[in-house]
């Protein structure tokens, strides 16, 4: 009995020593539920394994703590607290401001920051919390990149589909697209409402058909499979307009609607988080992970690699695992290497990454990278 107690005591005291040998990243993310396809944990795990296989960071292994939040805010807060108590030096959570803000507030008490690799919502950059990073640029940038390409294609008359259900992502992103189109000499013919989960767009399509002028493009920031239904129904109704969108289009199931008739995707393009065409770093990363036996199903799950790579870079550069030092290092760097693009920087932007915005289109049903630059004419009044 005495021997068991001694062994148990030894194990108990050994835990802190072991903890110091690992760098912990806590991800309380939806592994089940509607938002599961967008969670970044598979990419984070894969990148951590890659780095650990190369010897880790300054001899320390990266440990990705993952637990299912189911998309629930209260669960995400509880998980954040749990990960912080376990010594996490950085946290990730679902990219919605109503969850990210309270999680960031909990993390602030520990000096820890949130790194969200896909959050494009502008609410997080209004100064409510300062221990927050998003690895991508906010929605006005993607809207502008898409509008610039639309103008290049001769688009003049546009219809904007808006919904309050996805916050500014679905409500204001179309308006920023419209602002850039109008600044470029185009016209917003109409703004139409929609709800997430729409499987029949006939009422909106009837509205579009009743407009005085022919529509050149329809812009929507929504999710799959709603978008694919809209694309098909617009074509079926004889409306030969571009269907333009944001990162919600960036799902493999969009490509599959062109399996039998690739021409259905000829007039579809979207501005997104990172290039995800056949030759892109993201696809290469997903293939590498597959070889390692880790399934990373799409761009959104792959972005977790950016979190891990940025964290590893900050610790390696600063030589410290102190959460505040990690945040300061990220914030002051001219260039931070990540997986999805060559580099990002928070130096001028503080909370969001300055990076190129890819516009993806389709040629014969296959994704093609149309452009990949930082748009300079982004509307200024977004925050």
């Amino acid at each position, binding site marked *: 009995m005495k021997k068991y107690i001694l062994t148990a005591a030894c194990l108990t005291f050994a835990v802190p020593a072991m903890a110091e040998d690992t760098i912990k990243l806590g991800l309380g993310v939806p*592994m*089940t*539920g*509607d938002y*599961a*396809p967008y969670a970044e944990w598979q990419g984070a795990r894969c990148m951590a394994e890659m780095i650990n296989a190369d010897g880790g960071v300054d001899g320390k292994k990266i440990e990705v703590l993952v637990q299912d939040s189911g998309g629930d805010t209260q669960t995400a807060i509880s998980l954040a607290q749990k990960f912080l108590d376990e010594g996490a030096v950085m946290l990730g959570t679902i990219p919605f401001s109503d969850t990210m803000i309270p999680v960031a507030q909990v993390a602030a008490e520990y000096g820890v920051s949130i790194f969200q690799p896909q959050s494009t919502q502008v609410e997080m950059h209004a100064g409510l919390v300062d221990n927050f990073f998003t690895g991508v640029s906010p929605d006005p940038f993607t809207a502008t990149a898409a509008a610039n390409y639309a103008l290049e294609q001769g688009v003049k008359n546009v219809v904007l589909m*808006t*919904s*309050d*259900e996805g916050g500014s992502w679905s*409500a204001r992103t179309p308006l920023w697209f419209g602002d850039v189109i109008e600044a470029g000499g185009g016209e917003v013919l109409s*703004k*139409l*409402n929609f*709800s997430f*989960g729409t*499987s*029949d767009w*006939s*009422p*909106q399509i*009837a*509205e579009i*058909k*009743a407009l005085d002028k022919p529509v050149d493009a329809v812009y929507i920031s929504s999710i*799959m*499979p709603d978008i*694919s*239904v809209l694309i*098909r*129904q617009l074509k*079926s*109704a*004889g409306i030969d307009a571009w269907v333009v969108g944001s990162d919600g289009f960036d*799902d*493999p*199931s969009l490509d*599959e*609607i062109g*399996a*039998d008739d690739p021409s259905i995707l000829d007039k579809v393009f979207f501005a997104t988080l990172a290039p995800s065409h056949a030759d892109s770093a993201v696809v290469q990363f997903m293939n590498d992970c597959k070889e390692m036996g880790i399934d990373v*199903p*799409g761009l959104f799950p792959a972005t977790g690699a950016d979190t891990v790579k940025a964290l590893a870079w900050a610790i390696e550069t600063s030589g410290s695992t102190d959460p505040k030092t990690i945040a300061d290092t990220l914030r002051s760097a001219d260039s931070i290497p990540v997986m999805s693009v060559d580099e990002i920087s928070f130096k001028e932007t503080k909370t969001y990454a300055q990076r190129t915005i890819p516009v993806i289109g389709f040629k014969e049903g296959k994704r093609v990278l149309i452009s990949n630059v930082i748009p300079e004419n982004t509307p200024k009044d977004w925050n």
Partner: protein
Amino acid sequence: MEYIVQQVINALAFGAEYALLALGLAIVFSIMGLVNFAHGEIIAVGGYTMVALGALMIGNPYIVIASAVVAAMFASVMLERFAFRPVRYADPTTGLLTAFGVSMILQNLFLLFVSPRPIAVTSLYFLDWPVNLFGVQVSSLQLFETGATALVIVALMLFLRRTTLGIAMRAAALDFEMVRLVGIRANRVFAVAFLVSGLLAGLACIFIMARRGSVDPHMGFNPVLKAFVACVVGGFGSLPGAVLGGFILGAVEVAMLVLLPQEYGGMKDAFVFGIIALLLIWRPNGILSPRIEKGDKV
């Protein structure tokens, strides 16, 4: 004028889909007093059957449609046998909780053993093409769906009024103990109610998949919610009420979508449910609520 006709047709098509879904809920409720919230997952079973057939390279649309309907019917009967029969005589809230539990279990099975992502199913795209109807362009799918719902209503009426089993189901809806006393097997009545409900879920699945073109673990949630609302509006347990509720809900939804100014778009559901609340103030038990003491329930 063309615009108004177009929107009226849209409202009818929305209503037809909701009616088809609501009938599936209502027929089980009328016999068993159970709100089967797992009805949406029966639809998803049909969708995943289509995915499985695609993986087996079976693309014949007739086989795909028939298999999805049969799978939905089979799943529905299995649920009755293994999930709902043990709680048949329990308190109604037990049945309700069981239905929620079954729904969650099935969703998580789809998540764990298939995929949390939407999976494209393109084999039913052929059902959707533009049709010129007296100068108004409509979707063939809208016509199929409205027509199928009308056929289902007629077939159900004939089944319930002209067949022994149908008459037994109507009698069971009124006084189940009396039906058992005259020698009709309770298990058969319940099984047939679930079989018919599964058939309706299978039919709804075809139209949902033809339009949506993909299946995911939660695809049944929204439809079953609409069906529930339609049933409440029409009068829970009444089959004509379910149909009427479906068409009213479809009409109100389309009307709010096109009539509300853009700045009030976020309040569409609030307006829809506001109108429904007014209807329920007028008829608290639903518009065609079954008479409790006498008369025909289904």
